[in-house]
Structure formats: structure tokens, C-alpha cells
């Protein structure tokens, strides 16, 4: 039951859920939730590949750095959201389109 295929399937499903959340939501924080899902999917993939190939833990290191990066990304991303909210009183993604033209 625990094999590469099932792990790839789970991470695939996570990835698709992440994309659905990213596109369907109009709330910036909700979009960030989707991004976290996608990052988790990729980290899971790395760990699974390490386990089912040579188990030399390089994949774990990569997953670790993905987690680290995701945390940093969340910090900065939410910081931007909060700043945006202070300026615009909204966290609707369509209000963040003032860079047009």
C-alpha cells in the first residue's frame, strides 16, 4: 500500500486542490492557503522519491528547505496582504489590480 504511486497520487491530489483554491478564491489569504497546499504537495513528492529511490536523504533536505521557504513566503506574503489591507481596506484580489497599464 505504501508505495511511490500512492504518494504521487496523494501529492497530485493536494496539488490539484491547491490550484483549485488558488483560482477559485478571490480572497488573497485564501489564495495563500492554496499556495501552501501546493508547496506541501511538492515537499511530499521529494520525501517520497527519496524513500523509494536511493534513500540518501537529499530529498528530505529539499523538503526541509521547501518548508523553510514556505514559512518565509507565508510571512512576507501575509505581510504584504496586511499592508495592502491597511491601504485599501480590502483583501479582494481584484482590488489589487492597480498595476494595470
Amino acid at each position, binding site marked *: 500500500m505504501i508505495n511511490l504511486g500512492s504518494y504521487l497520487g496523494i501529492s497530485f491530489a493536494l496539488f490539484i486542490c491547491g490550484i483549485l483554491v488558488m483560482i477559485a478564491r478571490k480572497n488573497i489569504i485564501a489564495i495563500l492557503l492554496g499556495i501552501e497546499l501546493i508547496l506541501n504537495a511538492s515537499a511530499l513528492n521529494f520525501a517520497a522519491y527519496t524513500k523509494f529511490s536511493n534513500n540518501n536523504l537529499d530529498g528530505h533536505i529539499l523538503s526541509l528547505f521547501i518548508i523553510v521557504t514556505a514559512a*518565509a513566503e507565508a510571512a512576507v506574503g501575509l505581510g504584504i496582504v496586511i499592508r495592502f489591507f491597511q491601504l485599501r481596506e480590502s483583501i479582494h484580489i481584484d482590488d489589487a489590480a492597480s498595476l494595470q497599464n
Partner: protein
Amino acid sequence: MSTFNLDVYMPVVILIALAMLVAGGSLLLGGLIRPHNPNKLKETAYECGEEPIGSAWANFNVRFYVIALVFIIFDVESALMFPVAAVFKKFTQIGLGGTLLVSVFSFVLILVAGLVYCWKKGDLDWIKSFHSQANYAKKDK
């Protein structure tokens, strides 16, 4: 290299299940015997006897966020430090402690620079608003 069986995670699962069971069980048990006659007054939020005004889900001060921000950065730092700390002893025993010491030092000190920055900029001051108000008052004079 020693290996382990995944059975060691059994207690974790059992304990989580037990926690659910204890909480849910006590609530269910109570549900059978405790009284249940709600009324509107009972169900309003407590505001020292006054009628609640508006929702409590209002905006909060951003300083909470800055604290959480510093926290997550150091949290991640600790996550990276744990494995390195775990091998530190081994490295000192095989004579590589100096190298690792330098890398740990640089790693930690770089992050301390961030802490110092936030400190200097006043992000860690909880009552920053008082200071700034005082400053404004001074400027007005």
C-alpha cells in the same frame, strides 16, 4: 545503522484518539444528563451585562502580526538548528567541531541581526503607539 518499526507511532495515534474520546465522551455523557434549556439572554456574548455592540471580529493591531512574524522566523530557525545541534557532539568528537561551530555561529548571528533590527526599529515594543502619540504631542508643541 539501526532501523525502527513504525509501531513506535502507535502511542501517538492512540493518545490523539484518546484525547478525542475523553473530550467527546465527557461531552456526550454530560449531554445525556445535563439540562438544556437555552434562551436568548443566555446565548448572548458576555459584555459585563451590557448589550453586545457589533461583532468581536474586528480588526486588531498589527503588532500581533509582527510578533507572529518574528516567531515564525525563529521557529524555522530552530527547525533547522535541531539536526545540526544533534550532530554537534559527534562532530566535536571527530574533530570537526570548529567548522561546525563557525557555521552555527554565523547562522545564529545572521538571524540575531534580524532580531536586533526589529528591536531597534521598535517592532518588539508592545506599547509603541503610546510612544508615537507622545512624539506627536511633542511635535504639536
